[in-house]
């Protein structure tokens, strides 16, 4: 691999501790999950701002919202299904409807827990949180963006959901500049636009090189904010290329692909091909096998785009 690989949990923990030095209201809520989320340094430094509630995610969201009512900025990080699907109604009402300044991090999203299967896959988290009005959804592309997104999230006033896989993630971008709500054109192109989110994007960047070798000039857009979605960049790409492919380590339904399709349906209608995880309960197994099966590998993305462009 040509990129330096970094520990996402370490970045989450470090940025939280750094921001906590600046903002005394930042606190950490844990469901037996924080010490394993790189929060060790924070806990050591600010034991009185660390709230362990044990394995009870509904309560953790409620307690977080309650802390926020008093002006605190709680950060709650645990595996993605357990901070979204499990306590969904608490997320919807206590965080969303009450519009509280709570920061929820769904870690080990996608197929990170490939050995544990559907109970632990994080494949519906974007879909669920997108249904809750006025919650920002972030899905950083690489280690630099994760660092930037963490800082932006902790400085933003309002509810945020950040999703990240926590296997080692590549450092692709040099600086950690991060603006909520903005997509980034990573590569200019005219034949097709590939819009991608999360750390699976590294495969898209490599696929774009293969496509170029095959004579396809693909535009690549990194979309580290899913909500609010950057409508402008999508419409521009649709106008310019006339064909859009979306790539995400999430169900094909409800995630980035849906968000992009909705923008196209509303503002500029072009064919959209969604590459993601099919709506089924996939077996556990090696991570690479799952990624291959869903055509999220470099080869899978390349093939799918070639077929789509040839249509």
């Amino acid at each position, binding site marked *: 691999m040509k990129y330096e690989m970094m520990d996402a949990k370490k970045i989450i923990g470090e940025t939280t501790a750094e921001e906590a030095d600046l903002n005394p209201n930042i606190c950490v809520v844990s469901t037996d999950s924080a010490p394993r989320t790189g929060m060790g340094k924070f806990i050591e430094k600010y034991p009185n*701002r660390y709230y362990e509630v044990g394995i*009870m995610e509904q309560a953790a969201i409620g307690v977080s919202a*309650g802390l926020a009512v008093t002006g605190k900025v709680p950060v709650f990080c645990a595996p993605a299904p357990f901070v979204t699907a499990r306590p969904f109604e*608490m997320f919807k009402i206590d965080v969303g409807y009450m519009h509280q300044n709570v920061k929820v991090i769904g870690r080990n999203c996608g197929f990170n827990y490939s050995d544990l299967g559907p109970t632990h896959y994080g494949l519906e988290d974007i879909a669920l949180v997108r249904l809750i009005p006025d919650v920002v959804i972030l899905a950083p592309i690489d280690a630099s963006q994760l660092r930037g997104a963490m800082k932006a999230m902790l400085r933003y006033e309002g509810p945020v959901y950040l999703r990240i896989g926590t296997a080692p993630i590549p450092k692709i971008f040099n600086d950690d500049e991060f603006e909520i709500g903005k997509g980034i054109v990573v590569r200019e192109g005219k034949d097709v636009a590939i819009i991608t989110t999360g750390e699976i994007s590294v495969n898209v960047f490599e696929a774009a090189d293969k496509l170029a070798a095959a004579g396809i000039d693909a535009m690549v857009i990194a979309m580290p904010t899913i909500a609010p979605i950057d409508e402008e960049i999508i419409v521009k790409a649709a106008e310019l290329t006339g064909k859009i492919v979306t790539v995400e380590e999430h169900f094909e339904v409800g995630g980035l692909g849906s968000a992009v399709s909705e923008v196209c349906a509303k503002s500029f209608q072009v064919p959209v091909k969604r590459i993601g995880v099919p709506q089924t309960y996939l077996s556990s197994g090696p991570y690479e096998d799952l990624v291959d099966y869903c055509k999220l590998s470099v080869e899978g993305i390349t093939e799918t785009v070639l077929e789509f462009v040839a249509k």
Partner: protein
Amino acid sequence: MKVNDINKLKATAAKCRQNVLRMIKANGSGHLGPAYSCIDIVTALYFYGMNVDPQDPSKADRDIFLLSAGHKGMAQYAVLAEAGFFDKSILDTFGQFKSRVPGHPDMHKLPGIEANTGSLGHGLNLACGIALGKRQDGYGSKVFVITGDGELAEGSNWEAAAIAAHYKLDNLVVFVDHNGLQISGQTKDVMSFEPIASHFAGFGWATKEIRGNDMDEIVAAIDQLPFEKGKPNLIVANTIKGCGFSKAENQVNYHYWNPSEADMALAEKELEDYLAGVQA
């Protein structure tokens, strides 16, 4: 507390019940039974037990009140209006689209509302977070919550029961509005959580049982807070659903009331008579 002051609270509770009727009249119907069963407690809290200021509803050291059973919202609106948190004319918009007194409380619409309740089993966990935050700030603020007895079937309450005891939240005070009735019948028949007090005691709470429509007993319980240092406080308030309107008391079909003119007139008359007696 002096007898006179208790009488004043009783009169205030009756005026708050009048405010509830005002809302039901404006809308044509409403949750009379639940509002009437807890309104004496809500009155005692805002007019006696809590550090709150209608002129400065967001002051940092205030006590917090959460109506976990949000369908009793009319009780809170009635008391907030009586206390001067907002103009009583707002009560007349009850039931209208975009009303500031919606079916369930909305913190963004009215001063004095601290949470968006209505879905059951949310209040206690929110209250734990608020109690932790207030404690971290070093204010002596208390957090008061009213839950329904039927509401205790929501498992999230028992998550909060553990958290409150674990964190020794003696600034948390929960009244269970124990009127014994829920939509399908008697709570003990639908899903029993009896004996409520000993379940909470098992988690490590300090508990007390009172008659929840008896102003003397409510005030006495408030005066004894915290019941035990380092333990969250649980008060099983044995209440009468619909208390304050003879035809509604303990009647499950008055949970949601769609009154005839004659019934409304009777309800109003009973309150007037009561007020005349207590103010005499």
